[in-house]
């Protein structure tokens, strides 16, 4: 019941519910997520999905600096490492390909929430970062900064991998 409510919250585009939805989905993940977020202790930082209203860092030279997720494509609870999202540019470099207020697609490059790998281990990064792509999945920028996960190869974002300096 709580799960459906939370998912409905994320679907509905109400900014009011945005903050509530964040905390609720955090609680929901504890019961449903098998991987890690088991116990919600007040001291521990709860890492959750990338959902509506999540602000992400942009790590390519497309011109944008900060981007806010509007909609995670795929995923009822939110986007994870390697997923694509629709985002709105909140902060941009003055002279860049992308301007503030533009709606763009992005591929999640680094997520603070751990993602399970096929060998059974889990990876997590320091922050939430995204690379802007066009509708076809080709990156808008020409450079990518910081470490990039292996998961992109499975998602067929090979172009981004070739631009990467470090592959985590």
């Amino acid at each position, binding site marked *: 019941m709580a799960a459906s409510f939370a998912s409905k919250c994320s679907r509905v585009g109400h900014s009011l519910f945005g903050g509530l939805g964040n905390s609720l989905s955090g609680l929901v993940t504890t019961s449903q997520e098998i991987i*890690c977020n088991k116990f919600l202790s007040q001291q521990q930082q709860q890492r959750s999905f990338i959902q509506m209203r999540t602000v992400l860092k942009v790590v390519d030279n497309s011109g944008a600096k900060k981007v806010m997720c509007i909609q995670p494509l795929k995923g009822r609870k939110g986007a994870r490492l390697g997923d694509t999202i629709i985002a709105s540019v909140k902060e941009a470099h003055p002279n860049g390909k992308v301007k503030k207020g533009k709606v763009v697609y992005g591929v999640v490059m*680094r997520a603070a929430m*751990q993602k399970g790998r096929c*060998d*059974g*281990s*889990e*990876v*997590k*990064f*320091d*922050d939430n970062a995204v690379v802007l792509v066009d509708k076809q999945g080709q990156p808008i920028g020409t450079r990518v900064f*910081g*470490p990039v*996960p292996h998961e992109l190869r499975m998602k067929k974002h090979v172009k981004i991998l070739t631009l990467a*300096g*470090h592959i*985590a």
Partner: protein
Amino acid sequence: MRLEKCWFCSSTVYPGHGIQFVRNDAKIFRFCRSKCHKNFKMKRNPRKVKWTKAYRRLHGKDMTQDSTFEFERKRNRPERYDRNLAEDVLKAIPKIDKIRVRREEKHHKNRMKGNKAKLLKEAARELEQGINLVKPPSVLQKDPSLTLPQIKVLVPQQQTEENRPMEE
């Protein structure tokens, strides 16, 4: 498949265990379990945490330099598969382990060498100070030298016979 070392405690991380944390400077930290991960998040220095291998090596509790460690060095060059080589390696691994364990035990014994003399000295002191806990003081007064063997003094009977006429 690769057996990694935990960044915090230096134990081996087998596949399917642990979490990998990738920092934004592309440095990867691998942890064997959440204990090490949580200590890392607390920013504890493993060289100061007593139960880690780093502390033990630094403070000379464990062997630091040995030729058996050379076998476990990380090699980044992939080896071409050779069945004979693989067979030899599989045979050698338990032998090397045995030698390494034997050397570590010797190191431990050397470390604990001065202990027996110390223990004996302390035991003697404790006996001297606390003997009244074992035997009550009244018994001790009757026989002050309980530890010394009882010396039998032979009293010649002729002397007593001579004294008797004197007393009368």
